[in-house]
């Protein structure tokens, strides 16, 4: 009997202290107080929460620290923060207030040693490498800046490197699928999941419960989504019952 649960991770995009929603970071709408939203997801049975800080100005960086600090006082599940993490001190400040993991994206591509240093100082378990990919020819390339910059790096090669440098988890976002609600990109999720020995969180494209079931069947260890949970198109409790009915182990 298999009990080890697949994880459901709602993502909260946070800008200047508020949860925001929009497509490709354009036309952002205010969507609530992060602490209230976190509380709601926690009550519905979220297995972890991810905060993506999309605050443009570095002056407001302390806002996300303050939010995590407040959430960590009442939500007792793992918390991840991504967005704008560039140096060890950024990681330290977040972990110090009750954040469990940080997800590093462009800073890791620009200076991969950040992964080694973070893993050595804080442990691999808290260093998530976030990889945004787009299909480019017959390969998937790593993209930066929300899909605008093609680094030319093969996603599979980068995922393996990130893990060998000490990353404890990969957060894989398909920029092709993101926002479409047509389902995850199963192919690249499966390839990366088979290529690395650490858990892979699939992101981008979730539109309904079946999509999440499919991505778990293709090797993802966790599924991350924002809008379907945010707009209550999918209720986390219902989703878990649905997955359980289809023999996918979940924490109920």
């Amino acid at each position: 009997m298999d009990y080890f649960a697949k994880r459901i991770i709602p993502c909260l995009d946070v800008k200047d202290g508020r949860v925001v929603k929009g497509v490709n970071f354009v036309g952002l709408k205010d969507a609530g107080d992060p602490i209230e939203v976190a509380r709601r997801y926690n009550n519905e049975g979220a297995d972890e929460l991810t905060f993506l800080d999309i605050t443009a100005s570095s002056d407001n960086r302390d806002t996300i620290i303050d939010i995590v600090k407040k959430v960590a006082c009442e939500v007792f599940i793992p918390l991840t923060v991504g967005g704008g993490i560039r140096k060890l001190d950024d990681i330290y400040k977040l972990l110090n207030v009750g954040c469990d993991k940080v997800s590093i994206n462009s800073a890791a591509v620009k200076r991969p040693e950040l992964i080694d240093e973070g893993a050595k100082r804080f442990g691999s378990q808290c260093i998530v490498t976030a990889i945004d990919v787009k299909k480019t020819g017959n390969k998937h390339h790593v993209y930066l800046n929300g899909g605008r910059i093609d680094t030319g790096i093969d996603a599979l090669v980068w995922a393996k490197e990130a893990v060998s440098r000490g990353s404890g988890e990969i957060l894989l976002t398909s920029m092709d699928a993101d926002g479409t609600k047509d389902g995850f990109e199963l192919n690249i999720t499966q390839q990366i999941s088979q290529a690395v020995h650490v858990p892979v969180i699939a992101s981008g494209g979730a539109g309904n419960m079946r999509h999440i079931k499919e991505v778990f069947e293709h090797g993802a260890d966790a599924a991350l989504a924002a809008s379907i949970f945010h707009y209550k198109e999918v209720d986390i409790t219902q989703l878990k019952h649905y997955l359980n009915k289809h023999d996918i182990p979940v924490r109920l």
Partner: protein
Amino acid sequence: MIAIVDYNMGNLASVKNACSKLSQEAVLESDPAKLCKYDKIILPGVGAYGDAVSSLKKRGMDEAVKEFAKSGKFMLGICLGMQLLFERSSEFGNHEGLGLIKGEVVKFSTQKFSKPLKIPHMGWNRVFTKEHSLFNKLDKNHYLYFVHSFHVECFDLTDIIGESEYGYQFTSAVAHGNIMGIQPHPEKSHLNGLQILKNFINM
């Protein structure tokens, strides 16, 4: 009063927050000389075994924790903190632990897995518990949050109070008299995790 042993290994805020939520004041204590004054201690920890042992030793905290254990007062090791209670670990070299519980810490042996699984064991899993006051009032099918690549092996099987399944069955909770340890993170395991901490506080 409860002390959370502060030996510069990892994030102690979550354990402290969880205690506050349970209306239990907990002090981050980094002074070994003061440890014996507390009613209970929690030994947390994330990171590497070797680093943790040297960090404990550097401050003389290893001896203070051993003294506390002798006093008969309750103590709880969480995750790496549980593994430190054992005699030794083979994590990146051989390291001597506190030796409060007989046994050793070994890496998940993926060759023995019944099917391929990721390492670290990261996520929510079941703990099949024996009758123990640490596990009072838990939900029948409770899940707890794990993050680890190494697990303990008890030499004295009567010390085992919880087992979990990941590739194979392994020990996920131990108790030897007043000394207890749990592999998953109760401070990150939602209501059932808080209940475990509450049970410890109420001992």
